[in-house]
């Protein structure tokens, strides 16, 4: 019986029959339906996914006319970072990296971010003047929409890195209400920082702000970004905002937060997109997390089922995150091109995403 080269979610190469791939696709979809409360994929969609997984070509792509927008996060890190951060270890300036992405790699957007300053909202306040000058200089050489990018990274607002008490530590000591109170203080500060950073970078000519790995510190992190976007759009309505998530489900670290009456904790991409829209976000970047013990087929069907519903329910353009450990792609620092292109094709042609 014919077998096809494919991968596990941890990157291990495996060979599977078409029947096994079909079984895994159905199981992955079933898991998404259960955890995310999303509809089944149709039999035609599952067949399309099966054909994508079983394609004998090493690299696959979309049919002409199905191309989508390619936006970016992580700024110049993909060249300058080391392999542990999916980088290539090539020393180049932020401007050179931006121009390579724009002119050689055909990215439709790019961003400037300070990786020397943790690529995070809080520490960047201290170097805002230098960041503004660089943004102004770089904008003079760029044509594609060029954003300022940073991670919200609310963890940096807590001890030992920040001024507020560490919520998990406080909870472990039984101080639940105090932990929640510290989170709320951190949220207020991060919201103000987002507005400050965003307004300053708009003054320097930025086309907008790209929030990378939103909600990595849970529901408070996500809520702060939503509030920050609201304030930024009020102050600078021309600022385009892209909010890319960090995980498929908003972790309930606070557990009792709401945004305009909608619960924040525990929600999946299709509900996250709704909150983003309410806040005035312009492009939403949903995420699904690859399960390392499952196959590429399982993870692909799981991810496509969740993202398809997000795309369907969202009035915003959705640019799904595709890379190491997300979007069905294996959890490897440099994921195999076979997996990256297959999952990307599935997202475009089955989940019908607006961009990647």
């Amino acid at each position, binding site marked *: 019986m014919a077998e096809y080269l494919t991968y596990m979610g941890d990157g291990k190469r495996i060979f599977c029959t078409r029947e096994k791939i079909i079984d895994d696709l159905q199981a992955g979809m079933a898991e998404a339906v259960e955890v995310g409360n999303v509809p089944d994929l149709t039999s035609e969609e599952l067949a399309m996914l099966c054909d994508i997984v079983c394609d004998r070509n090493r690299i696959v792509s979309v049919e002409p006319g199905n191309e989508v927008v390619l936006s970016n996060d992580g700024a110049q890190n993909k060249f300058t970072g080391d392999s542990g951060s999916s980088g290539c270890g090539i020393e180049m300036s932020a401007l050179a990296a931006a121009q390579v992405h724009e002119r050689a790699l055909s990215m439709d957007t790019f961003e400037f971010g300070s990786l020397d300053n943790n690529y995070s909202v809080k520490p960047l306040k201290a170097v805002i003047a230098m960041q503004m000058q660089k943004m102004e200089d770089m904008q003079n050489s760029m044509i594609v929409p060029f954003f300022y990018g940073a991670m919200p990274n609310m963890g940096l607002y807590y001890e030992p890195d920040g001024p507020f008490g560490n919520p998990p530590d406080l909870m472990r000591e039984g101080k639940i209400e105090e932990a929640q109170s510290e989170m709320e203080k951190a949220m207020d500060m991060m919201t103000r920082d987002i507005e400050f950073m965003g307004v300053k970078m708009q003054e320097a000519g930025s086309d907008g702000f790209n929030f990378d790995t939103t909600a990595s510190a849970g529901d408070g992190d996500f809520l702060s970004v939503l509030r920050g976007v609201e304030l930024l759009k009020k102050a600078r309505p021309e600022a385009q905002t892209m909010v890319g998530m960090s995980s498929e489900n908003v972790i309930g670290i606070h557990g009792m937060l709401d945004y305009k009456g909608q619960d924040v904790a525990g929600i999946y991409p299709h509900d996250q997109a709704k909150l983003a829209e309410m806040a005035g976000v312009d492009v939403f970047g949903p995420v699904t997390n690859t399960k*390392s013990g499952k196959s590429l087929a399982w993870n692909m069907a799981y991810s496509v089922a969740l993202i398809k519903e997000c795309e369907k329910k969202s009035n915003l353009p959705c640019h799904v995150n595709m890379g190491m450990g997300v979007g069905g792609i294996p*959890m490897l620092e440099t994921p195999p091109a076979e997996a990256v292109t297959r999952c990307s094709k599935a997202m475009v042609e089955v989940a019908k995403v607006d961009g990647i």
Partner: protein
Amino acid sequence: MAYDQKASAEVAKEAIAAKADLVNLIQEGYTAGIQEVGDLYQAKKLFLPHIMSAANAMNVGVNLLTPELEKAGKSAGEGLGKFLICTIEGDIHSIGKDIVAIMLKVAGFNVVNMGRDIPVKDIVAAVKNDKPKAVGTSALMTSTMVNQKTFEELLKEEGVRDKVITNIGGAPTTQQWCEEIGADVYSENATDCVNKMVAKVKG
């Protein structure tokens, strides 16, 4: 659910005074309650404050009952042995590790939560001194997961690798990484960790 520590203590005190079956109270009461909270947490119906509150309430009651059980020569749970758990050197992420610690305790392990950013040499020292059945390390970054490998190597250098079951977890870690560094068990999440470790120690 109320997560009421005072009520939890009162129930324990009443049971002691009434000479009730304390093992049954722990297994059918406290443990059953927190298992339900754990299930709801996995289902994204309850969140971190709830599971931490429930664990705190359970601990208040169990801590009152444990001395009484020891006097009677009984064990509070299945007595699966000591389990050291920590976030590895260089890494300050602790939430997932703390939830795993709670769930392992519920399953019957005597859990020692060493905290976060624990130097590899300190974990090895704890293995030598405390002689645990198992040790679990968590890493949430590709830059810190390498310390799980260092830990395995240091255990071998110190001659205690075969004395303990090693368990690894954390977002960037995988079964393949587990095999590559020579760890015994990879856990994808808290439930996976409990299932695999209970099976491992029971043989």
